[in-house]
């Protein structure tokens, strides 16, 4: 049998999560609903070994702290196990192994794969090469849909809805994959987007085009602080020094995309500030103690959102009632 026939036989029926387009709005809401019920399990208050006997392959070809650890925690809280690629520098990847071959190997060892790769499109490529579902944990400047699920969970937790909110996405919108996936999802729920970034780091034109095709209300601006008072969500991202030609330029530009407690004096009471972390100095520590800060809860929500995703992609139903769970 030829290679393609072999791939075909192994079947591609079990789709993973590569971009948010792989999920309908109903899928999103039902996974977030599962996530809410799993909160006591994520906190370690209840042990629920739904994924006992299942193995997650963590394939991080690029450094990751939160995403890798939260996948691992999610799997272990549900009684499952994890195998890691380990350090790329000492793995077969440095010997020149193709992604295709690496995936063939890990596909045989595991039931589901979470991956991050420096090249864009790597997750889709891996999904085409694999039998098991792939969870895209970031591909180059492409997508990061599991982050989007935890972001949506955090927004839903605070506002009780995803519909029709006014959301400011700020900072590096060009290379920031978290905002690429998130913006797609938000417009599907009818959110208004204000994209605040330096000219150099604007959202890629093809993404803006896609958003407008969905009928989205999108405003591009360089002004962050002038746009936060009417917002329901302000989503900050880190601007990296290496994107700029020199440090003076960076200092000049990045300064306009920082939040201090005094900046949020006149915002809506229920407005929330989010950040995918790690932050450098785009959110001043003075903001941490305001009622608006949500970034640490957001990071915790990575566990519960990924628990719900792992169950969904492994076809494991999350019980309607979980002991110690929220109603």
């Amino acid at each position: 049998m030829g290679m393609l026939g072999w791939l075909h036989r192994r079947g591609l029926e079990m789709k993973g999560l590569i971009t948010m387009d792989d999920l309908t709005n109903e899928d999103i809401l039902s996974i977030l609903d599962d996530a809410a019920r799993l909160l006591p399990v994520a906190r370690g208050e209840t042990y629920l070994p739904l994924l006992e006997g299942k193995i997650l392959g963590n394939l991080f070809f690029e450094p990751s702290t939160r995403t890798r650890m939260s996948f691992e925690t999610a799997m272990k809280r549900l009684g499952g196990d994890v195998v890691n690629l380990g350090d790329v520098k000492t793995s077969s990847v440095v010997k020149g192994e193709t992604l295709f071959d690496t995936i063939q190997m890990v596909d045989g060892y595991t039931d589901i794969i979470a991956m991050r790769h420096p090249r864009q499109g790597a997750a889709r490529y891996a999904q085409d090469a694999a039998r098991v579902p792939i969870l895209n944990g970031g591909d180059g400047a492409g997508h990061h849909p599991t982050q989007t699920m935890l972001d949506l969970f955090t927004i839903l937790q605070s506002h009780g809805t995803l519909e029709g909110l006014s959301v400011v996405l700020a900072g590096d919108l060009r290379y920031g994959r978290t905002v690429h996936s998130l913006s797609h999802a938000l417009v599907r729920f009818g959110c208004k987007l204000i994209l605040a970034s330096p000219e150099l780091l604007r959202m890629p034109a093809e993404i803006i085009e896609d958003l407008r095709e969905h009928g989205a209300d999108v405003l591009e601006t360089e002004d962050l602080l002038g746009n936060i008072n009417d917002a329901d969500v302000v989503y900050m991202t880190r601007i990296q020094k290496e994107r700029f030609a020199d440090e003076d330029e960076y200092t000049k530009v990045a300064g306009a995309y920082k939040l201090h407690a005094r900046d949020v004096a006149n915002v809506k009471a229920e407005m929330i500030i989010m950040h995918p972390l790690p932050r450098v100095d785009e959110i001043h520590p003075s903001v941490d103690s305001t009622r608006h800060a949500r970034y640490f809860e957001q990071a915790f929500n990575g566990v519960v959102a990924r628990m719900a995703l792992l169950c969904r992609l492994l076809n494991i139903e999350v019980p309607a009632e979980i002991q110690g769970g929220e109603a």
Partner: protein
Amino acid sequence: MADEHNMRRVTAIRNGTVIDHIPSGQSLKVLELLNIARDTSVPVSLVMNVPSKKMGSKDIVKVEDRELTQTELDRLALVAPDSSIAIIRAYTVAEKLEVNLGKEVRNVVQCTFSNCITQNLREPLPHRLRVTSTDPLTLRCHYCQRPQDLDELIHNLL
């Protein structure tokens, strides 16, 4: 008639393929696309920038002693989607073919985005570009989803 006159700029071929109605100046790209430029075994005639009633001006390519296949010709849609193709046998038109890009261009060109996973040519899965619109022609990589720059794409033939 202008068209007949154009056809006579080069002699009629006995057997082979005539590709007509190529947008002016695109015939060199057509040769490149069909790998004809690298095949030195067959005579090729090229007519550039001749008047055309239908297009204002056009290019024509005649390839002798070779009948191009539909799959080969479908590549033409990347630069000459409205070209007309005739298979010639014994000086007469034996078959007329149309180019058809379909919904996806598979293993013809490599994605133009420098950080796409398919940049590693050792990766074995097919190069796949999705046709997102035909007029104007727009393509996106199946893997990285980046829109393709058509002028650049022509240099990425596989």
